[in-house]
C-alpha cells in the first residue's frame, strides 16, 4: 500500500465535474441512525495476531473449497479509475494488488483463515522460504507444474529475471525493499540496465544453483523477506514473456485468470487461464469464468447501482473503492443492503504531521495534539464507517495493536482537550495570535477538515494560515524537505502486516530525503537504533521492539498527532457468494468469490 494518493485524485475530479454531490448529500445523517454495525476494536484483536511462516504442507494446493461455491459466470467489477498497473514490477497500490491476486503469482503469498489470521505460504515456491546464516540467506525451491499462460514452465531463471528487471529504469512505481536489501539504497547502479544486456547480479547476491532453486544473500538478517516477496510487486515475470515497457499493458498470467482485453481508462476483461493448475495453488480458486471490469464508474454510481441491485449489478463487486460516504446511511439502515457489505479496517492511520524543522517545541506539538477534535475529523470523512478514533500511530491492522493505548487522551476526549492545550501553550510561552501554516489538499475531505482544524487551533490562540494545495500534488509539495508549512494531515498504511513497513519509512531519521514519507522529518537517535535492531528480528520478537519505538515516537517526540484509523465498507451484488473482508488486502477477499447463480 502507500500513502492515500492516486485513487482519491480521480474520485474528486469526478464529483466536482458531475456535481452529483448535491443530489446524494441529503440522505445521510438524517437523524435515523442505524444500529452501530461498524466493525469496532473488538474485531481488531482478531486482525492483530503476528504473521506465521508456513511450511511445505501449508503451501501445498489445492486450496480448501469455499462452502457452497459454484463454478461459472462472470463477475462485474466497478472501478472509478483505471487499473494503475499490470506489470508486477510497477504494482504497489491496492487496486493492482487485488488484480495481481487473480493474474500473477509470486514466490510467496498470504493465506488467510476465516478469522483473518495470516500465514505466509509458498506460492510458486514450495514453502515460505528457508533461512540460514541467522536470516541473512534465504533459499526457495520452486513447485512443479508452475506454467505461464502460454504453457512455459517457470524456472529459477524467471525468478532471478523478476528481481533483476526491477533494477531497470522503466520500473519505478513498485516496491524497492528486496532490491535495497540486496544491493543497497542506490541499487540501480548495481545493474543499470537490469538483466536486458546479459548482465546479472553476482551469485553472492542472487544465486540460481539449479532450475528449481533460488538463493538470496543479504548483508544483514532480513526476517521479513517472505512477507516482502508476497507483495504483488515481486510477482513472477517470465523472462521469455518480458516485453519491458509494454508488459504493463499485456502481462503474462501465472494465476487462475489472464487478461483477455484491456482498454485503458475504460475496461478490462479477465478470462480463465487454463495453464493454471489448482493443485499448485493453496490460496486461489477459479470459480467464475472471468471478470468484467468497468473502470469509469464513480463511487457515487457504484454505490447507487449496488444498492439498487438491478440487472448486471447483482453480479457486481466494488474493487478497491468504498461505499460513497453520502450513501452510507442508506446502506447500513437497510438490512437487505447491509448484509451485502463487507466491513473492516483499512491500514491507514490519519495523522497530523508536524514539520519538526518548524515546530521545534514538543509542548506546542502536544498542545495541538490535545486540541484536535478527532471526532469531527472523522465526521468529515464518512463518519463512523469511514474512520475510528486513533490513540496511537499503529493501525488496528498491525500485529500487536493495543486498542487501549491513548497517551494524549484522544479516545477519552474525542472532541479535543482545549484546556489542556492552552495550559501547555502557556508553559511554552506561546503568545496569542502566533501564526501557524497548515497545508491541506483541496479534496472534499481536505477542505472539510481544514475548517475543523482552523477552528480548533484558533480556539487555542493560533492564527492559522490555511494553504490549499492541489490534491494531485499534495504529497509532492509536503514531501519537499524545505516545505514552508508547519503542519499537514498525512495518511500512511503498511505494506505487509509488520510495523517495519510503517516505522521505517515514516519515522526513521535516516530515511529523510526529498519525497520520502518521513513528512515530519523526525530524526531521533534512539528511534533509529530501535528500528535497526527490530529489522533483524523474526516477526514475533520484533513486535516488542516496534512497540518500544512506537511509544518513544508518540510520547517522547510526538512528530504527528494520531487522529483516526480509516475504515472500510464495500458493497457487493446479491448474486455474489463467498464475499468477505480480507485482512491482507483490506478489501473484498478476491480469492474466494463466486456467483450463487452463475
Amino acid at each position: 500500500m502507500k500513502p492515500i494518493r492516486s485513487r482519491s485524485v480521480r474520485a474528486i475530479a469526478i464529483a466536482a465535474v458531475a456535481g452529483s454531490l448535491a443530489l446524494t448529500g441529503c440522505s445521510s445523517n438524517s437523524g435515523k441512525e442505524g444500529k452501530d454495525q461498524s466493525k469496532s476494536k473488538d474485531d481488531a484483536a482478531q486482525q492483530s495476531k503476528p504473521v506465521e511462516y508456513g511450511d511445505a504442507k501449508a503451501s501445498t494446493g489445492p486450496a480448501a473449497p469455499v462452502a457452497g461455491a459454484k463454478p461459472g459466470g462472470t463477475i462485474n467489477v466497478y472501478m472509478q479509475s483505471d487499473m494503475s498497473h499490470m506489470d508486477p514490477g510497477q504494482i504497489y497500490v491496492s487496486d493492482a494488488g487485488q488484480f495481481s491476486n487473480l493474474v500473477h503469482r509470486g514466490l510467496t503469498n498470504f493465506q488467510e483463515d476465516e478469522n483473518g489470521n495470516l500465514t505466509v505460504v509458498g506460492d510458486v515456491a514450495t514453502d515460505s522460504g528457508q533461512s540460514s546464516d541467522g536470516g541473512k540467506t534465504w533459499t526457495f525451491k520452486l513447485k512443479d507444474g508452475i506454467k505461464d499462460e502460454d504453457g512455459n514452465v517457470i524456472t529459477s531463471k524467471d525468478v532471478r529475471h523478476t528481481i533483476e528487471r526491477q533494477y531497470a529504469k522503466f520500473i519505478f512505481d513498485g516496491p524497492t525493499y528486496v532490491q535495497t536489501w540486496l544491493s543497497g539504497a542506490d541499487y540501480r547502479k548495481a545493474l543499470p540496465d537490469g538483466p536486458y544486456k546479459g548482465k546479472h547480479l553476482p551469485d553472492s547476491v542472487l544465486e540460481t544453483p539449479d532450475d528449481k532453486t533460488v538463493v538470496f544473500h543479504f548483508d544483514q538478517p532480513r526476517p521479513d523477506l517472505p512477507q516482502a516477496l508476497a507483495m504483488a510487486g515481486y510477482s513472477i515475470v517470465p523472462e521469455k514473456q518480458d516485453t519491458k515497457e509494454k508488459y504493463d499493458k499485456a502481462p503474462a498470467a501465472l494465476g487462475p485468470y489472464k487478461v483477455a482485453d484491456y482498454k485503458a481508462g475504460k475496461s478490462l476483461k479477465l478470462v480463465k487461464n487454463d495453464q493454471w493448475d489448482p493443485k499448485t495453488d493453496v490460496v486461489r480458486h477459479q470459480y467464475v469464468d472471468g471478470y468484467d471490469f468497468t473502470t469509469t464508474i464513480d463511487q457515487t454510481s457504484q454505490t447507487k447501482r449496488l444498492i439498487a441491485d438491478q440487472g448486471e449489478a447483482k453480479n457486481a463487486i466494488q474493487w478497491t473503492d468504498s461505499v460513497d460516504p453520502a450513501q452510507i446511511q442508506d446502506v447500513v439502515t437497510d438490512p437487505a443492503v447491509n448484509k451485502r457489505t463487507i466491513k473492516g479496517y483499512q491500514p491507514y492511520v490519519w495523522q497530523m504531521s508536524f514539520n519538526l524543522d518548524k515546530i521545534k517545541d514538543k509542548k506546542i506539538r502536544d498542545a495541538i495534539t490535545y486540541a484536535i477534535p478527532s471526532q469531527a475529523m472523522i465526521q468529515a470523512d464518512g463518519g463512523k464507517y469511514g474512520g475510528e478514533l486513533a490513540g496511537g500511530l499503529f493501525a488496528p491492522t498491525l500485529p500487536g495493536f493495543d486498542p487501549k493505548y491513548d497517551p494524549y487522551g484522544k479516545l477519552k476526549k474525542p472532541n479535543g482537550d482545549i484546556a489542556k492545550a492552552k495550559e501547555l501553550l502557556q508553559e511554552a510561552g506561546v503568545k496569542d495570535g502566533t501564526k501557524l501554516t497548515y497545508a491541506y489538499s483541496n479534496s472534499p475531505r481536505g477542505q472539510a477538515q481544514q475548517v475543523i482544524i482552523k477552528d480548533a487551533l484558533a480556539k487555542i490562540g493560533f492564527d492559522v494560515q490555511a494553504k490549499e494545495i492541489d490534491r494531485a500534488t499534495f504529497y509532492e509539495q509536503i514531501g519537499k524537505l524545505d516545505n514552508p508549512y508547519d503542519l499537514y494531515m498525512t495518511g500512511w498504511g503498511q505494506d505487509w502486516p509488520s510495523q517495519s513497513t510503517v516505522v521505517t519509512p515514516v519515522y526513521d531519521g535516516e530515511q529523510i530525503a526529498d519525497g520520502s514519507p518521513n513528512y515530519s522529518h523526525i530524526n531521533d537517535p534512539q528511534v533509529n537504533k530501535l528500528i535497526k535492531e527490530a529489522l533483524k528480528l523474526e516477526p514475533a520478537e520484533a513486535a516488542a521492539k516496534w512497540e518500544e519505538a512506537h511509544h518513544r515516537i508518540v510520547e517522547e517526540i510526538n512528530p504527528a498527532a494520531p487522529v483516526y484509523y480509516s475504515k472500510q465498507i464495500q458493497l457487493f451484488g446479491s448474486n455474489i457468494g463467498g464475499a468477505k473482508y480480507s485482512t491482507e488486502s483490506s478489501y473484498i477477499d478476491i480469492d474466494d468469490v463466486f456467483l450463487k447463480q452463475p
Partner: protein
Amino acid sequence: MLQFLIRRLIGAVVIMFLIGAFTFFLFYAVPQDFAALSCGKNCSPENIAVIRENLGLDQPITTQFWNFMVGIVAGRDFAVGHCPAPCLGVSFKTGDFVWESIMDRFPLTLSLTIGGLIIFLLFGLGTGMLAAWKRGTVVDKIASGASIVLSSFQIYLLGPIVLGILVYQTGWMENPKYVPFTEDPAAWFIGLLIPWVVMATIFTAQYTRMARSTMIEQLQEEHVRTARAKGMSRKYVFFRYAWRGSLIPIVTIIGMDLSSLLAGGVVTEFTFDLAGLGRLAVESSVTKDLPLTMGAMLFGAFFILILNILVDIAYAFIDPRVRLS
C-alpha cells in the same frame, strides 16, 4: 470560395499550433514536477530522476516542444515502440500513445453526439417551428413553457433522476453502456438511449426556444411580409422565407454545440459513467498528464476550427450575400 477555404485552413493550422504551444508552455509555467507526480511511494530523488528520464522531461523544454511538434507531422519513437504520425506523444500515466487513446474514446463521443444531435434537432427545431407557427395558441404556450422549464434543467440533475427511475427503481433498463456500433447495433442503441434522451431533452428545450424566437423574428421581417403581399401562402412563406432566414442563427448555434460536444460531453460522460473524450480530458488534466491533456485540447480545438469553417461554408450556401461578397 476555394481561396477562402484555403485561407481558412491555413489559419486553422496556425491556430492549432498556437493552441498547442500555449498549452505546452502554460503547463510548464506552473512550477510542478511531473516526475514527482508520477511516482508512487518511492519518491526518492533518484527515482524521480529515473522517471524524468523515462518521460523525456530531462530535456530542455524547447527540445520537448520541438519533438512534440515534429511527432505530429512525422511520428516519433518511444520505448514502447514507434508512434506514427499524427503522434501526440505518450501518456505519462498509462504509457499509451495519446492518439490511440483519443481514437479509442472518440467513437463513444461521436455516438453520443450524433445520436443526441439527431434527436434534439428533430424535436427541438420541430417543436420550435410548431410553436412559432401556432404563436400565441395553447400549443405555443405549452411548448415554450416546457422548454423554459426543461432548459433550466441540467444533465447532472436530470440524468440521475432518469437513471433512478428507469434503472435503479424499476430495473426496466440497464445502466448506460457503450458497445461499438460495429459490434452490435442494437446494444449500441439501447446502451446509449438514456444518455441521448437526457442530453437531447435539455438541448431540445434550448433549440425549441431558439427556433421559435428566430422564426418569430424572421416572420416579422419586411421581406417576409412582402412575400405574403405577393399572395404566397402562409406555409410557403413560413418554410421558404422565414425558415431560410432562421438558418443562419440556427446553424451558428449547431456549429458551436457540435464542436463542444465532439470535444467531449464531460458532464454527460461522468453522469452516465461513460468513457469518452470529455472524461479523458478531465482526468488527464487532473492527473497532470501533459501529453494526454495536450492531445485532448488539440483534438477539441480541431473540431472547433473545422466546424467554424463548415459553418462559414454553410453561411455561404444559405446567404448569397456571404457567397457573393
